[in-house]
C-alpha cells in the first residue's frame, strides 16, 4: 500500500524545485521537457557550443546563474543571441602567464557547482581526469547544479546532445551571408530511456 502511495507524494512544487526549465525548442528533445537538477549534460558535434548555450538559456532566463570554467573563447554575443542572460554569467579563466593545475581546476569547478545553478565546462578542462569528473558529478547531484560539458570525453553525460548535421541557409557560392542554422540533434545518455532526435534552430 505504501508503495502504491509513494508517487502521489511528489507534488508539483517539489518537481519545480528539483527541475530547471529549458527553452521550448529543447523541450521536445529532453525527457519530460525539463532538466533535473544534478544532471550532467554533454554536448558534441559541429554545433556543440551553440547547443550548450541554447540549453543553459532556459535556466538562465528563469533567474539561474551561469558559471563558465575554462572557456575563454566563448562568443558572448552568440550566447546573448541564444538567450543566455549575460547579467547572471561569471567565468573563470586561466592567467595569461600560466595554466591552472588539475587540482586547482577541480577546486574551481567544485566552487562553481556550490554557488551556481548551471555550470558550463570548456576546453581547458580536458585536464580533469575521469575520477575528478566522477567526484564533480556527485557534487553536482548533492548541490542540485546542472553541469554542461562541451566536448569533454571525461564527462559522460546523463543527457548527451550530439549535433549530427548542420544546415546553414543564406549562404551561396561567393554571395549572401549565413543567416539561419537548423541542427539535427540526437539526444541519448543514461537518463534518456530511448534515443530521441529532433531539429533545433540555433538561431
Amino acid at each position, binding site marked *: 500500500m505504501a508503495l502504491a502511495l509513494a508517487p502521489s507524494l511528489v507534488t508539483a512544487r517539489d518537481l519545480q524545485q528539483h527541475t530547471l526549465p529549458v527553452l521550448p525548442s529543447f523541450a521536445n528533445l529532453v525527457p519530460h521537457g525539463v532538466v533535473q537538477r544534478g544532471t550532467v549534460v554533454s554536448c558534441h558535434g559541429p554545433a556543440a557550443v*551553440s547547443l550548450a548555450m541554447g540549453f543553459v538559456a532556459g535556466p538562465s532566463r528563469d533567474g539561474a546563474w551561469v558559471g563558465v570554467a575554462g572557456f575563454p573563447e566563448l562568443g558572448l554575443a552568440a550566447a546573448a543571441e541564444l538567450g543566455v542572460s549575460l547579467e547572471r554569467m*561569471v*567565468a*573563470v*579563466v*586561466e592567467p595569461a602567464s600560466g595554466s591552472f593545475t588539475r587540482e586547482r581546476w577541480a*577546486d574551481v569547478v567544485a*566552487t562553481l557547482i556550490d554557488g551556481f545553478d548551471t555550470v558550463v565546462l570548456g576546453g581547458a578542462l580536458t585536464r580533469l581526469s575521469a575520477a575528478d569528473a566522477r567526484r564533480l558529478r556527485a557534487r553536482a547531484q548533492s548541490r542540485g547544479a546542472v553541469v554542461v560539458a562541451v566536448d569533454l570525453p571525461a564527462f559522460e553525460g546523463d543527457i548527451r546532445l550530439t549535433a549530427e548535421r548542420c544546415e546553414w541557409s543564406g549562404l551561396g557560392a561567393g554571395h*549572401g551571408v*549565413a543567416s539561419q542554422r537548423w541542427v539535427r540533434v540526437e539526444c541519448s545518455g543514461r537518463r534518456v530511456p530511448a534515443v530521441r532526435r529532433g531539429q533545433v534552430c540555433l538561431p
Partner: protein
Amino acid sequence: MSGVPRLAVVWCPQWPVVAVQAQPNESVAVVHANRVVAHSVAAGAEGVRVGQRRREAQSRSPFVRIEPADRLRDARCFEPVVAAVAQLVPRLDLDEPGTLAFLTRGPSRYFGGDASMAERVCHVVEQAMLEHGLSSSAVGGISVGVADGRFAASVAARYRRVVPVGESAAFLAPLPVSLLDEVAGMPADFVHLLGRLGLHTLGQVAGLPRQRLESRFGAQGVFAHRVARGADDRLPTVHDPPAARSVQRTFEPPVQHSDTLVFVGRQMADELVAGLAADGLVCTQLLVLAETEHGERSERIWQRSTGLPVSAMVERIRWQLDGWALDDTLTAGVMRLCLDPVEVRVDTGVQAGFWGGRSQADEWAMRAVARLVALTGEQQVLVPAAHGGRHAGDAYRWVPAVSVELDQPRERLRPIDGPWPGAVPSPSPAVVHRPPLPAEVLDAQHRPVRVSGRGVLSAPPATVRRTAGVRADTTHTITQWAGPWPVDERWWDTAKARRLARFQLLTTEGRLWLAVVEGGTWWLAAEYC
C-alpha cells in the same frame, strides 16, 4: 512632541577619506567598483563627486590619490572615536563608521547644557583622532549636532547646530528633501519623485496630510512624513522585543581569533533573524556583546532604521570585534558572544523591484564569486561587459568581477552606441579565437587565394587547412562561402591602422568559419560552433 528622544549625533563627513589618513589639503578619493564613494574637500573643489567613475575623477583632478574602499578599515579607524565618546556617555548607538549617536539627557546636564556638551565631545573626538594619527581637516572637520529625533539630530550635525527643544520641525522645514536620501537613507528615486511632484522642502512634505502620503506611497510615505515633521524616525510599530530573543554562545576553550568569532556570529545572526522573521519582525537595533575570560567586555549598540539583515549584522560584528582586537590591552580569549535585539519593529516588507531585486540564487552566486576570487585571483574571475566594435567578439568583453557591481548589471551591459558599419550581421560566432588561428586557404588549383587592394579575389576558395594547433593538417573542402567584406580601419593612425577582408567559409562537415585575410595571410578568427 514629548515622546521624541533628544539626541546628539557626532558626524564626520566622508569618513573613508579620514581612514586612509588624508593630509590637510590633500586631494584624495576612495573608490569602490570603479566609482568614487568618498572624496576630500580639496578633491571636491576640483570637481570630484561621489558616484563618478575613477577615470572621470582623475581627469577632473589629475593628482588625486585614489584609494580602494575597505569598510573594515573604516570601522577599525573609527574605533578610537567610539572609545573616546564612550568615556563621556554611557550608551552609544552606532550606525555606520563615521556616525554615532547618544541620548543627551544625562550628559547635557552634567556638562552644563547642550552647546557646551557638543563642544566638549567635539574636542574629545579630535584629541582621540590626533592620538591615532587621523585628521579630519581634509574633509572639513568633525561636527556635532543636537536636536529632537534621530533624523533631525543627524541633519543638525551636518549644519553644526544645536536645535532648541521642540523646534526640530521648524529647523527642518526650509531644508531640501534630498536630505531624506542622504541622511535617512530613503531610496533616491522616491526622493527624486517628491521633487518632481513639486515638494522641494521638508516643510512641504510635512505640511501634507499623512493619509494622502500613505495612500500614494505606502509605508515609505508615512516614514518620510514622520521624519520631515521632526518626529523620531523610530516608527510607532517599534517596540521592545519579546523576551528571550537574544542569542548567545559560550566558548570552551576561549576563542583567540576574531575570524572564528565572526563565523559563529554568522550562525547566530542567521538564528536571530530567522527567529524574528517567524514573528514578522525585523531588528533595528542590535546589541553585540563579547566578553573575555578575564571579564573584559566589548558592548556596542548598532542601529539601522531600515532594519539589519544577516549580512549587515555580520559586518557589524566584524567591525566591533576587529576594533576591539586592535586594542592591545586584551589579556585573554573571548569566552562569550551575545547578540541581543534591543529594538525590533514589524516588518513592513521591502517591495522587490519589478524587474530584479535580489533572490536567493543571487545571494549564493555573490558568495561563490567572492570564494572564486580568493581561490584564483582577481584577474581570473570575469563577467561580461558591453564593449562595441565591428570585429567578431567585440560586442562584449570579459572584465574582472571585482571591478563592477554584480547586482547592478544594467549599466555594464548597456550596448555601446554604434553604429558599427561593416560588422558581420548576426548570428554571431559562438567561439572567438583570440589570437586568431593561422590557416591556409587554397583554390581548386591548390594555389593560395589572394585578395587585391581593391577587394578582388584571385580565385574562389576551395579548401581550408589550419596550419598550427591541435587539429592542424586536416584539409576541409569548402562547399559554400561569402565575402570578401573589406574593412579599412583607423587609416589615419599608422600604428593602429588595419586593412583586412572577411569571409564566411562553410565546410562539408557543416562547420562555418569566419576567416580573415590581412596582409596576404589567412586567419580563422571565429567559428559558428
